[in-house]
């Protein structure tokens, strides 16, 4: 809309709604295109799901809504639906000849805003703008909850969420931010368009700290990207990594819930911790005050290795903890930080991460590792981050979640489909809440300027740890997490990085509690004392 709309848009939303239609049947494609054009929408057609994804990736923010058929030769329509929801967070409408309830339900479960039966009537197509509007309203509401100014909200509402720049509705700050994002995107995209980002420990560390800094429930790829301030990665990289991250945490949560034995074992380790890391126990900003607990990764690693890796870093921890300004990380944020690889909630800025005070300078990942060990700073009985959340407010969210994330990422391809069913169960369990997540967390890319400023403002204020339904694990995004993780294959490259190894271990076995401990420790030793 920004690029090809006249400076003074006189049309009122939803005129000019940008629709991408995906259908393998050329007849339908033609008919739908015609119908949508008659509704005064801007239509782009596509016969293949993969091509559609490419189009959406290349021309992010150039579409408002996607209409897609369920049956397509190259990719299942539901899969496409998930991809879009995860990566672009656009509303997707499914179409099919088949109106069977189970199919429709599947569509909705996968995140479809609507499910139309073919032959689609024009009046149905005419109404699709509602989904775009609803989504944006929801996003506004999310921002509202994070202390956005009334004026900004008013602007957004009035404008009907389109043509912000042209209408001069963006504040100067928003525009500046938008430009920054655009620049960043431009250079990033050209440089790293198809490059695989290797999520090294260091990079991941920055990522996690950015996530925590923003506050998980308000996090968005762009914001993270901005905070990370790492050249060469795109928002898309961050988005997919974020998804994986969330999924990973959810899985840990689930595993942690399942394995009380593991918890007990970790609890045993705790006594070792306090002397080395008093701050662990008494993390000032922890919402719950239970005994301190290392992250699952940490729990595995540190205790077994006599807390040696930990000791030298305790002072760093202190530093980091102190630096963190906001105390309460929303449970979701906690949930979503990679166990053992994520900066704890307390760690706010990324500076501590980069300044390595680790006694082993040749281990560049030293500091991050420390961070990793820090993470489950909450004083919880559970030993991993996810488990921690059960102690946090709204425990019902987590306890009620079925063991979804027992996803076996053993297959190299990290097939999204493998992840889906389990995750879908989880979604089902949390169903009333999950739908809202889409709009709330990821996918703010649709309105870069506005959203950027939203996040900015929301970050400035102290996080309250308020957990709303929308704070729940954004499931559609999670779905991509593992698959893209496998794609990126970053973790394979980071051999000695314990946190990454840990993560990969998590990825590889669903019983990470039991298995990973054993071989992580030597690595830790190697890394730390190489």
């Amino acid at each position, binding site marked *: 809309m920004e690029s090809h709309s006249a400076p003074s848009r006189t049309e009122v939303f939803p005129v000019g709604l940008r629709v991408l239609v995906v259908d*393998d*049947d*050329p*007849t*339908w494609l*033609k*008919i739908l295109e*015609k*119908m949508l054009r*008659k509704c005064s929408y801007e239509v782009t057609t596509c016969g293949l799901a993969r091509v559609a994804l490419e189009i959406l990736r290349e021309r992010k923010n150039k579409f408002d809504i996607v209409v897609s058929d369920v*049956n397509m030769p190259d990719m299942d329509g539901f899969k496409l639906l998930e991809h879009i929801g995860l990566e672009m967070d656009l509303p997707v409408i499914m179409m099919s*000849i088949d109106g069977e309830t189970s199919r429709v339900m599947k569509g909705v479960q996968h995140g479809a805003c609507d499910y139309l039966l*073919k*032959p689609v*009537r*024009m009046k149905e197509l005419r109404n699709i703008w509602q989904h775009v509007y609803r989504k944006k309203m929801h996003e506004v509401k999310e921002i509202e909850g994070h202390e956005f100014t009334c004026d900004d909200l008013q602007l957004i509402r009035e404008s009907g969420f389109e043509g912000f720049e042209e209408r001069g509705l963006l504040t100067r700050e928003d525009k500046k931010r938008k430009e920054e994002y655009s620049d960043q995107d431009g250079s990033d995209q050209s440089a790293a368009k198809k490059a695989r980002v290797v999520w090294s420990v260091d990079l991941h560390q920055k990522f996690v700290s950015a996530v925590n800094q923003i506050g998980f429930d308000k996090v968005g790829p762009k914001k993270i990207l901005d905070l990370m301030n790492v050249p060469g990665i795109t928002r898309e990289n961050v988005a997919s990594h974020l998804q994986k991250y969330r999924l990973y945490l959810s899985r840990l949560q689930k595993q942690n819930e399942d394995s009380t034995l593991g918890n007990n074992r970790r609890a045993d380790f705790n006594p070792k911790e306090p002397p080395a890391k008093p701050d662990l126990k008494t993390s000032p900003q922890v919402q719950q005050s239970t005994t301190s607990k290392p992250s699952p990764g940490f729990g595995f690693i540190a205790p077994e290795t006599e807390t040696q890796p930990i000791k030298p870093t305790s002072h760093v921890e202190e530093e980091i903890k102190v630096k963190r300004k906001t105390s309460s990380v929303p449970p979701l944020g906690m949930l979503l930080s990679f166990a053992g690889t994520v900066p704890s909630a307390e760690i706010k800025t990324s500076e501590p991460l980069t300044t390595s005070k680790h006694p082993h300078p040749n281990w560049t990942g030293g500091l991050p590792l420390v961070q990793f060990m820090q993470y489950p700073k909450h004083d919880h009985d559970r030993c991993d981050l996810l488990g921690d959340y059960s102690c946090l407010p709204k425990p019902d969210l987590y306890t009620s979640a079925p063991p979804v994330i027992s996803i076996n990422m053993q297959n190299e391809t990290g097939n999204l489909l493998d992840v889906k069913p389990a995750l879908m169960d989880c979604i089902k369990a949390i169903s009333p809440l999950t739908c809202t997540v889409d709009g709330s967390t990821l996918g703010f890319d649709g309105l870069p300027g506005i959203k950027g400023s939203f996040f900015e403002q929301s970050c400035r204020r102290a996080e309250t740890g308020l957990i709303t339904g929308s704070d729940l694990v954004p499931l559609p995004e999670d779905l991509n997490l593992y698959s893209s993780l496998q794609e990126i294959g970053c973790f394979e490259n980071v051999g000695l990085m314990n946190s990454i190894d840990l993560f990969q271990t998590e990825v590889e076995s669903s019983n990470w509690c039991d298995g990973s401990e054993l071989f992580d420790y030597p690595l830790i030793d190697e890394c730390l004392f190489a």
Partner: protein
Amino acid sequence: MDVSMLQRTYLELLSSLFSEFTTLQKLQDKDDPKFVFRTVSLFFDNAERLINGISSNLNQPTVEFNKIKELVHQLKGSNKFIGGERIEDACVAFRSYCDANDLQGCFSSMQQLNQEFLNFKSKLDTLFTMEQQIVAAGGSIPKMQ
């Protein structure tokens, strides 16, 4: 031929088609006068491709009924807007034969489908010719209400 008679005949022919066809007609406007024609052509091209696929699958030494079923399903879907009920019915019957792995039934369904398509095609050809005739005779193409 009298224009009004042409138009009447035209409307009769039109009403014998799927009601959705008239929807298709409504999409056509003076900016895009050939819309219906082009869409229908697309439909037939696609249908031909699908039917050929079905046919070749049927003639395989080992018939894969699932594949055929899928193709028939696509055909049915494509037909939703354009074709006639008869084509749809033929598709439905075809699919049940596929489900039953009834090769004989599939063959007969195939024949029926072919026939229905030919019928439909000739109907549409007549329709388009009539449109041209009406216009040539100075009349306007009547639209269904």
